[in-house]
């Protein structure tokens, strides 16, 4: 533990180096703006920031993206509470009590509870992240290829199981992603796979192009389809933050702790993330909270639960990313991309090869959480004004960032053509209800999954049962299979519990 603390102290020294500190502040501001700006989602924002980090030092790049990620879970609350405009699903539960409080003339108090919840959730998650990462990484070091394949399988299974409105569509998205990852020259045999004589395809399809196209350009196309129509904003008198009294905080401490722990745990589950954390935590508070009967009527617990869990899920999601190289959410998938762009593969070995970087990232989360709350306290009034910015102008610049991001990766115009292809694919996916995150994670984790699968097959004489019979990979595979079939079980149970009148009504 002493070693961890001394490394963390060194991490703080790195964070306060001028370049890293500037990256952190820029990341915080960008994350806050992204969460407030119309037409930009948190994941999109992190995707668009990625090209700007190409030439940065890897530590500064990861700090910037992590700061964006954490602050992006916070600022959306302001627009939910003040204007009833949730930036993305994370912020929807904040409407139920936060906006209700604002309508009762308690907007400053609601913003104060939001700030405190984000602060507590962020710091708790950062502490848990520091405490758990090294032990988990030590365990992960003993893993062999079957275990790694099992973990990736579990990660992909949970992304499929959680996301989207159709399990089959999520599976198809994932398979398309895995297939895109196979394009190019195979490492072992040198065979050309799906290159169709196109020279640039021999190097494979850059996952960055897929991410930027599907998340960024695809989203812009969707907004074009909806005609950039956003709801008119309500007028708000003042944007002030009033922090709660100590006795009020003491009275709600159980909600803080419950939501914080839940957020971290949900963040750790690959494929879950801030949205699941926010909704589930609100649900748990409504079921078990001291004032459960008053939830939805504008009480602090209705703000504490979703906001604490959403922010604490960030630290949770960083744990599988840093210790095993498995992203726990859409944003961490992009942070994984940033690691890979700089030639670093996250996983247990990074604690030995790049411990300075790891602890600088850990320390940066503490600083980022405090920094974002300070900015929120003093600058929320200024930042929410960007909500008035025309969405179509934001979208035009989103396209520009997408184009430049794709072009800059390999200085090749073919990548920009591929970007347009994946933009259209991303739009069609959303239109036809095929979720995009499984596709993107499939592209990122596909090569790792294939490599670990093939190596296992070679090492164990093509005996695929080894994945299920080894003491560590077996249970993980079993959990993965259960995760995959859980939505079906849930569906069947719901159907069995439904009154027969429904069927009668459909005829």
């Amino acid at each position, binding site marked *: 533990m002493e070693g961890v603390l001394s490394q963390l102290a060194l991490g703080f020294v790195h964070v306060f180096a001028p370049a890293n500190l500037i990256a952190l502040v820029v990341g915080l501001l960008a994350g806050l703006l992204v969460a407030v700006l119309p037409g930009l989602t948190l994941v999109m924002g992190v995707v668009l920031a990625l090209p700007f980090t190409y030439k940065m030092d890897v530590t500064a790049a990861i700090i910037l993206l992590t700061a964006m990620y954490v602050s992006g879970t916070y600022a959306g609350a302001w627009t939910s509470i003040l204007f*009833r405009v949730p930036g993305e699903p994370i912020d*929807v539960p904040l409407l139920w009590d936060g906006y209700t409080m604002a309508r009762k003339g308690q907007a400053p108090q609601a913003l104060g509870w939001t700030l405190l919840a984000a602060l507590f959730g962020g710091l708790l998650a950062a502490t848990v992240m520091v405490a758990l990462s090294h032990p988990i990484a030590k365990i992960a070091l003993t893993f062999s290829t079957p275990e790694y394949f099992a973990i990736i399988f579990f990660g992909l299974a949970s992304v499929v199981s959680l996301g989207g409105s*159709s399990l*089959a569509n999520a599976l198809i998205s994932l398979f398309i992603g895995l297939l895109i990852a196979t394009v190019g020259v195979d490492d072992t045999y040198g065979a050309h*796979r799906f290159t169709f004589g196109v020279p640039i395809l021999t190097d494979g399809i850059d996952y960055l192009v897929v991410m930027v196209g599907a998340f960024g350009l695809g989203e812009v196309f969707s907004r074009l*389809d909806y005609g950039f129509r956003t709801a008119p904003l309500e007028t708000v008198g003042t944007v002030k933050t009033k922090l709660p009294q100590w006795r009020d905080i003491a009275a709600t401490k159980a909600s803080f702790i419950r939501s914080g722990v839940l957020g971290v745990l949900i963040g750790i589950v690959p494929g879950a993330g801030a949205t699941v954390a926010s909704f589930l935590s609100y649900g748990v508070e409504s079921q078990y909270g001291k004032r459960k009967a008053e939830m939805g009527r504008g009480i602090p617990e209705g703000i504490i639960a979703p906001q604490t869990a959403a922010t604490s899920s960030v630290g949770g999601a960083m744990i599988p990313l840093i210790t095993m190289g498995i992203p726990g959410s859409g944003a961490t998938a992009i942070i994984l991309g940033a690691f890979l762009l700089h030639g670093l593969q996250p996983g247990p070995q990074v604690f030995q090869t790049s411990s300075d970087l790891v602890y600088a990232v850990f320390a940066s989360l503490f600083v980022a959480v405090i920094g974002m709350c300070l900015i929120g306290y003093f600058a929320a009034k200024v930042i929410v004004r960007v909500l008035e910015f025309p969405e179509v102008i934001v979208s*035009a610049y989103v396209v520009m960032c997408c184009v430049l991001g794709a072009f800059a990766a390999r200085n090749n115009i073919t990548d920009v053509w591929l970007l347009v292809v994946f933009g259209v694919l991303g739009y069609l996916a959303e239109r036809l209800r095929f979720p995009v995150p499984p596709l993107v994670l499939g592209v990122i984790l596909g090569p790792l999954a294939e490599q670990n699968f093939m190596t296992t097959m070679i090492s164990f004489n093509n005996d695929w049962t080894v994945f299920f019979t080894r003491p560590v990979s077996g249970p993980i595979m079993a959990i993965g299979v259960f995760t995959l079939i859980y939505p079906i079980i849930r569906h069947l149970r719901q159907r069995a519990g439904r009154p027969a009148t429904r069927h009668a009504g459909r005829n």
Partner: protein
Amino acid sequence: MVDAARLKPTVPYVLLGAAAGYLYYVAAHFDYHRREGVLGPDFWPKLVLILVIVTCVYEVAKRLVLGARKEEVGGVLGELVEESARAHGDTALAVPVEHHPWLLVAGMALSVAYVAVIQTLGFFSATVPYIALFIALGGYRRWGVIAAVSLIGALALMFFFMKIVYVSLPIGREPFDQVMLALMQIMAIR
């Protein structure tokens, strides 16, 4: 006889399944030196393609037999969000229903045209009209703002990416390259 209402939703799955079938054929003809008892580079893509085909066949069969999408097995997150929003009578998550297909097609065509001409016109000469047209297409009509946003934006992006990030953006072909070369000289970009 299956009615059109049931056939229409199967189209994406039929197309995907057919594409997967073709790609399976391509994968079966990968050129490599086979080794006895060792899985080749075609194994993984073939496995994935079989899974795509199986899922598509299942979806087509389900839609033809059951028809409606109401009984679909949903992802846990999607259902969680929908149920919670419904429980609170919240419409904030409701997807806008009004589509603008021509706007979409025009936006896509504009983006394709931009990519097509950027190497000929150069980054600046292609980007300024692209940003301006995109914003106008989106229904924004304050022309002064459009002009300022597109000009200043293109210059700022050019400066950042060429001067700070050292990305060599397309200069264009003669005679259009003169614009970029002049701007690069002004910005002291080498």
